[in-house]
């Protein structure tokens, strides 16, 4: 019998190792698994590489992990936002590494990892500083740079409904990075608003099939 549900947040993040690459979903607050970020802080893993569109806001969630000195490196498209105080402090003090990746390339590199591919040729950033050091190739008259897959050890995700097989639906734009990150990590952990019975989600409406999910915990927010 397949049952990916766990009873507690602590159980959900159990075993995440120091030095892990953590794919952290969410775009602003939408689709952001705040409870799992809090649980990871309590769990204690350190020397983490965080992959997120941004670099945390305020002092909780991802920013809380950074504030506690658990994050060695952040891979994101846009670290600055109103309230990204923790990251900016660490950045100025040279205490955190930043890898800046264009937003669509960030997502596609993870898709590539999830799809078992070795990379892709992208027109994004050609002729700019962000293409420095990347292999370049002309294909049918257009210039591209080689982008490599970005794989996670862990993905922390948020969904709306989930059944015990790990089939998921999302709410509106809270979907964002979640489905791609679910595919790109060795261990995909999701906080869902509501557990539902197997078969309750119309198969036509399942966005992330359970094959990509390892653990799920119910957090009704």
């Amino acid at each position, binding site marked *: 019998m397949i049952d990916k549900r766990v009873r507690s947040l602590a159980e959900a993040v159990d075993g995440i190792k120091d030095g892990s690459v953590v794919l952290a979903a969410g775009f602003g607050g939408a689709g952001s698994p705040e409870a799992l970020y809090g649980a990871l802080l309590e769990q204690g893993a350190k020397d983490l590489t965080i992959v997120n569109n941004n670099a945390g806001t305020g002092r909780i969630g991802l920013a809380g992990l950074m504030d506690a000195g658990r994050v060695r490196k952040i891979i994101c*498209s846009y670290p600055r936002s109103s309230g990204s105080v923790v990251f900016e402090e660490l950045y100025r003090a040279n205490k955190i590494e930043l890898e800046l990746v264009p937003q669509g390339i960030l*997502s596609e590199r993870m898709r590539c990892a999830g799809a078992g591919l070795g990379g892709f040729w992208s027109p994004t950033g050609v002729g700019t500083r962000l293409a420095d050091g990347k292999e370049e190739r002309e294909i049918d008259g257009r210039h591209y740079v080689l982008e490599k897959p970005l794989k996670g050890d862990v993905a922390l995700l948020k969904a709306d409904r989930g059944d015990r097989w790990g089939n998921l639906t999302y709410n*509106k*734009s809270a979907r964002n990075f979640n489905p791609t990150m679910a595919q790109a990590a060795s261990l995909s952990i999701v906080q869902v608003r509501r557990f539902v019975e197997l078969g309750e989600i119309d198969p036509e409406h399942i966005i992330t099939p359970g094959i990509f999910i390892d653990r799920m915990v119910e957090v009704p927010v």
Partner: protein
Amino acid sequence: MPLSRKQIAWRAAQDLGDGVYVNLGIGLPTLVADVLPEGREIVLQSENGVLGVGPAPNENELDLDLVNAGKQPVTLLKGGSYVHHTDSFLMIRGFHLDLALLGAFEVAENGDLANWTTDDPKFPPGVGGAMDLAAGAKEVRVLVEHTTRDGSPRLRKQCGYPLTAMQVVKRIYTDLAVIDVTKDGFVVKEMVADIDFDALQAKTEATLHKAPDIKVLSAPAM
């Protein structure tokens, strides 16, 4: 009178035809959503996976799971849909959008765009979706104030700031003019009434050419 920011957005919105799919960049281009021409179906795409972005929600409609690229709450139009990030950027990078309206620090006369970093050492750089949009929309247009606050030109021979993309900008809407980027450089299609061409040139680093059918740029009070 120079156009206000909202009037620049209004002018850019007038060129959006019925049925276009368009992405609005953060900042000045975001204002276009508030001044879309009546009677046309214009589909706004937001890079966080919303196709068919509607106006800001009223109190009853508010759902913090539905935001635009600037993370402001929005609504979804009838016919709208949600996709995940990878598909959203597939739309963006794969020439599926008719237009990207973007902000800029600088535009060069060959269409080079600089809009992601000023290399200010006090702040970390951020690129967001700018490079994907600039590389993959069918057409890129820029909304920008003609000069910086201290009067330096933003329309330049070459960009001084790091590039976002090479030779992509086709049209520029400023508070003073509408300018096309052509193989011969900047061509002024419209300019505000109370400035002469030499004065406009003085505020522009690159050489301006006057379109044969140059028109007055004006916008309603708003």
